[in-house]
């Protein structure tokens, strides 16, 4: 079908629009790209630029070999699923799905054929004559999806399509979404602030913050090798521990402990990152050089594990660690291991990843 490419997109400030700074990325056929970031990061702006609902201040948008930057939304052959679903309340489900096709003057038999196919696929057969007001939230969401699918667009755009569903339904629909879009031979761009959705659905994730692309990578790499301090702290729950430590050539100093750096650096300070789930108890007999002694100050029960807040002895530093809930941790003195393969190092000035 057609590749979607964004070239140096810029959107300067306009009323009700989050600005965007020099965004370039490509989405291949069949690729599921998620734009992930906190609210106000520019992810929705990007989606609206692709759709043509906003105009870029600078830059170009290409679908295949067409420059669509100046085209109105209706001419771009895209389909979009909105957070609120945006179903036309006065039209039946069938007419909602047919409206875009009719505008393209598609023959009625072809329209009927396509709608039949999609509605069977999504299990909407019995609902075709209902109005959106007579549907449940989950059904509306499906109709919105169906309306996008019948268009057979060059690009699918989805704007937080799960956020209006309740938690239980959301997980179920998330799995369905993955199946539905696995078969679509087009670029799919998905916007969310929910990292679980981003991780489970996407082939690639673009993390945005304050209008700037932070990292564009596979979900796995986003988690295992965050490109900077922002991505490190935004991805993963509970949050990664990030400690600003003084630096001494080959070591970072965590109180009296020396944490070895992969390479010597010439910085007075360095930021050490370690995810709570990667901290573990020191086993008896392990070299105690890297085992930190600490006092458990707080225990939060998360069900499958306990989240401990630990103060490292003789330092002002706190670490949070996920440990098995089979013991009682409260007020205990424990020793923790920092596995060197799970450590992340960031430049305290730029926030960029060092190693």
């Amino acid at each position, binding site marked *: 079908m057609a590749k979607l490419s964004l070239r140096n997109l810029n959107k*300067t400030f306009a009323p009700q629009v989050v600005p965007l700074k020099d965004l370039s990325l490509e989405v291949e056929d069949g690729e599921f790209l998620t734009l992930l970031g906190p609210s106000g990061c520019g992810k929705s702006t990007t989606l609206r630029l692709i759709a*043509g609902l906003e*105009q*870029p*201040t*600078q830059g170009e948008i290409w679908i295949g070999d067409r420059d669509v930057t*100046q*085209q*109105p939304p209706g001419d771009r052959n895209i389909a979009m699923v909105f957070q609120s679903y945006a179903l036309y309340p006065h039209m039946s489900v069938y007419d909602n799905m047919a409206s875009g096709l009719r505008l393209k003057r598609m023959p009625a038999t072809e329209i009927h054929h396509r709608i039949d196919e999609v509605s069977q696929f999504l299990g909407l057969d019995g609902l075709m004559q209902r109005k959106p007001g007579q549907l449940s939230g989950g059904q509306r969401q499906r109709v919105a999806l169906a309306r996008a699918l019948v268009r057979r667009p060059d690009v699918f755009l989805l704007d937080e399509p799960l956020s209006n569903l309740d938690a239980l339904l959301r997980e179920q629909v998330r799995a369905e979404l993955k199946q539905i879009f696995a078969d679509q031979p087009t670029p799919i761009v998905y916007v969310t602030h929910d990292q679980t959705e981003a991780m489970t659905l996407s082939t690639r994730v673009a993390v945005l913050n304050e209008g700037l692309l932070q990292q564009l990578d596979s979900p796995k790499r986003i988690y295992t090798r965050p490109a900077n301090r922002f991505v490190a702290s935004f991805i993963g729950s509970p949050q990664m521990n990030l400690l600003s430590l003084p630096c001494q050539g080959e070591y970072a100093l965590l109180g009296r402990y020396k944490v070895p750096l992969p390479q010597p650096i010439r910085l007075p300070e360095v930021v050490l990152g370690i995810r709570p789930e990667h901290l573990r108890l020191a086993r008896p007999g392990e070299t105690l050089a890297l085992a930190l002694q600490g006092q458990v100050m707080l225990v939060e029960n998360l069900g499958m594990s306990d989240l401990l807040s630990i103060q490292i002895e003789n330092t002002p530093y706190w670490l949070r660690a996920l440990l098995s809930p089979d013991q009682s941790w409260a007020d205990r003195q424990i020793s923790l291991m920092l596995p060197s393969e799970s450590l992340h190092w960031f430049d305290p000035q730029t926030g960029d990843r060092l190693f």
Partner: protein
Amino acid sequence: MRQDSLRQREQRTGWWLVAPALLFLILIYAYPIARSIGLSLFSQNLGTELQPVFTGLSNYSRMAVDGRFWQSLGNTTLFTVLSVLLELLLGLGIALVLNRSFRGRGVVRTIALLPWALPTALIATTWTWIFNDQFGVWNDLLLRLGLIQTGVNWLGDPNWALWTVIAADVWKTTPFIAILLLAGLQSIPADLYEAHAIDGATAWQSFWQITLPLLLPQILIASLFRFAQAFGIFDLIQVMTGGGPGGATETVSIYIYATIMRYLDFGYGAALVVVTFVILSLAVALAAWGLTRLRAAHNLGDSR
């Protein structure tokens, strides 16, 4: 920065959508005012055989010494101030009552709305009949209650005529104010009153410390609307008294209408229109300025 043609296309459509409405507004509002300003510099009356003759500002200097103009301006001011004040008081009372929930509130609200919807010219005949000196029911009621000994000629007595007209206007337009204030009352969150009551405030204190301050913007907006309407009052007075007796109820609009339609003095009539327009604009600008100041103060108070 590149010009975005999509936006331009959208805006061009926008202007096409606005254009017809704009055309109507210019034709019916802007043109007549502009035309009056122009015409006010000419004499065009029976003396000039209805031909326009340029006379500069002479219409305005004539106005300065025109006692009838000043009297009509005084009448208009009195009428406006009194009727708007009375309407505010009554309207606030009605709004407060209708803001409470009770069975049949919808019906009472409909009844209270009724006077506003009826044609002023017809209502004027109704009130003329009620205040009729011989057969009027108002005199009859007062006589039966022993409040007066003989019937009063309400519309024929220069001391009473303006009050009578004001009474009719108050009846006709109080519902408008009541509705606006009721909407304002309903937008005040109930938990404010609850919090205030928990603090130990009485209903009376709540009214002064919560209701009135929060209602002030609505009160000002309603007064602004009503002020402009009352200042230009025509139909009610034209039908009830025609400006009489002896000019006791002649407002500026009645005078303008007579100048143009009865005396055929178009130039002077135009000058009267212009002066009325200026006075009204100044008053409205003042009120609007006050309103913005008040809103700004409110917003400050919220953010603090």
